[in-house]
């Protein structure tokens, strides 16, 4: 559980090498000396580096294998994480942006996005939900995107998969309420990170550190949705309601 001042004792990162997940972990590590972090990711150099980085901050780090496209791998990872004790905060952070032109013309590319961005998180959410019900508490942070609210021509496959996951986690939050669970859906705009390397930043672009700050503030305030930057919320209210002929002409 988080204590009254917002300090968790344990953190479970799914997609533990993601820039946002690590930024969240660093911030919680600063709050809780000796924070236990279970870091689930594909084995390799990036995971080793992430383990080292959190270890240097005084965390007790356990690395666990996770393959985003495998449901069994999710089961193993959640079981392993729960084996270390209660999961106070879980962050579902992995994702794949993909190439939209390939994704909407190539079945394999399109369904890969669906598996990584929707099927995997759905499995994670179901398994984490089970753990929350058992524990009687637990916070699940799901990384969605503003693309889930109104996909554009240039990212609609990614947007479609994120929209599915966004709807699922929003509903999961309702389902887990009576079990002491809390789900936060995070909708960042363009985040300058590994995922977007080489792309031209969109307006209101942000960075992983800001997203992490917003996540911690939203968890503290027990909010269920947060946009990053905060101004993105207002922008999306407008964009969501624009007629399609207008939306399609926007230079975004």
């Amino acid at each position: 559980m988080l204590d009254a001042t917002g300090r968790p004792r344990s953190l479970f990162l799914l997609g533990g090498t993601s820039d946002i997940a690590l930024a969240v972990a660093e911030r919680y590590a600063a709050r809780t000396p000796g924070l236990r972090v279970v870091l689930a990711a594909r084995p390799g150099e990036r995971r080793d580096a992430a383990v080292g980085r959190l270890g240097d901050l005084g965390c007790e780090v356990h690395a666990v294998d996770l393959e985003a496209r495998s449901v069994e791998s999710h089961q193993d990872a959640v079981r392993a994480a729960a084996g270390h004790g209660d999961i106070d905060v879980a962050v579902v952070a992995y994702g794949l942006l993909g190439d939209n032109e390939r994704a909407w013309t190539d079945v394999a590319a399109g369904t890969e996005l669906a598996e990584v961005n929707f099927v995997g998180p759905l499995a994670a959410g179901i398994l984490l939900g089970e753990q929350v019900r058992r524990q009687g508490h637990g916070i699940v942070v799901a990384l969605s995107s503003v693309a889930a609210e109104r996909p554009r021509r240039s990212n609609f496959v990614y947007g479609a998969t994120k929209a599915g996951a966004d709807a699922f986690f929003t509903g999961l939050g309702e389902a887990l309420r009576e079990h002491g669970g809390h789900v936060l859906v995070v909708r960042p705009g363009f985040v300058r990170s590994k995922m977007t390397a080489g792309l031209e930043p969109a307006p209101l672009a942000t960075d992983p550190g800001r997203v992490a700050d917003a996540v911690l503030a939203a968890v503290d305030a027990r909010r269920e949705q947060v946009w990053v930057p905060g101004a993105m919320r207002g922008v999306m209210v407008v964009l969501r309601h624009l007629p399609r002929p207008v939306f399609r002409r926007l230079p975004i």
Partner: protein
Amino acid sequence: MSVLGVDPQRRTLTGWGRTAPSAADVAVPPGPDGVAALIASLRTGGDPPARGVLARGLGRSYGDAAQNAGGLVLDMTGCDRILSIDVDRGVVRVEAGVSIDTLTRTLLPLGLWLPVVPGTRQVTVGGAIAADVHGKNHHVSGSFGDHVLALDLVTADGALRTLTPDGPGAEAFWATVGGMGLTGVVVRATLSCVPAQTAYAVVRTERARDLDHLLELLAEDDPDPYSVAWFDALARGPRMGRAVLTRGRLARLDDLPARLAKRPTAFGGGGPGPGVPPMPYGLLNRATGRAFNELWFRKAPARPTTDVQPLGAFFQPLDGVRDWNRVYGPRGFCQYQFVVPPSETEAFRRAVALIADSGHPSCLNVLKRMGESSPGLLSFPAPGWTLAVDLPVGPGLDRLFHRLDDVVLGAGGRVYLAKDARLGPDAVEAMYPRLAEFRAARRVLDPEGLFVSDLARRVLL
């Protein structure tokens, strides 16, 4: 899950501070025997709840002491009968779920009063024992557990044991008094009472201009058994620690004006008064906090006065406002209460300065002198100075608490577990030197660790 026809309902629980919620299956056992049968059935059922069992009273612990995330919680307010009252000897036997409110309302017309009453009557006798609560007369009369003549405890094996403070079971008794509900479920208790001629107190009220003045006044030898000070937690510089000191005693018949003497034991002390509605935002911030502190100080007469007050108004002024904890808004609040030894006035001063300088606003600030410790292994009270502040949860509060922890630990003091919602295991280990004995006693009474709470998981009791 249905246990003996008691259907637990999943509910989200918090303490009085409304922080750190968790869900548990809550059952309301119909009486002490029901509790024993239920615990016994958990064993014979072969499948004890994976996340344990905990008794809960009226939920006035500020933190997570009466929560058990994912486990079973026994709501003891169904066990609320007063079993017998021996007026001549001043002894009352009750079920553990009876509230101090009900009990005092019943005892006063019979000319009896409890030797120790806490700052709210909305606690159960079981909760008062588990937290070994204290009152304004601690320096004279000790804590609640000092006046418990016997208690019935349902232990993890489903057995009902009668424990006394110095007879058989004394070890288990003093593990249970102050034991935060972790040794079993207290289902009945026998309490000693003191005589009371009236339902009033004679109260002397006096201002202290600063902390030195206040400590001086509190250290004086005082004929009155009850004393407590409210202090301004936001005043800095030369006015730091300015306070209003109230001292009193139970009123005798001849203290009462004729108007009150007609019905001397009529307990006027506030039924459920007006309530506070749920609030989307807290009302307390620096500005309102400062205004409140200023007002409260000025409300007290500039010169010492003596008057007659209803017992409820003197002992539990906040009981008149239902759900007053809602004024702190949805994020809730923490109470920080510590005690440091009598010689550590410098540490005390540093703590007051830290709070005043932090900018975190506190209005309900209580300071008093404490007397001897009780033999309770995890009991909070210890000789010295105790201070309590209520602070709304906000950014930076954890850092303030850390600094306060350092001051308290450095002075050999401790923080009250019934108020705490954020300490870590290392700090608690350092603050409670008898923790190892408590753990050993708990292993004997509950070898499999059936009784557990969120507090116990957090600080590893």
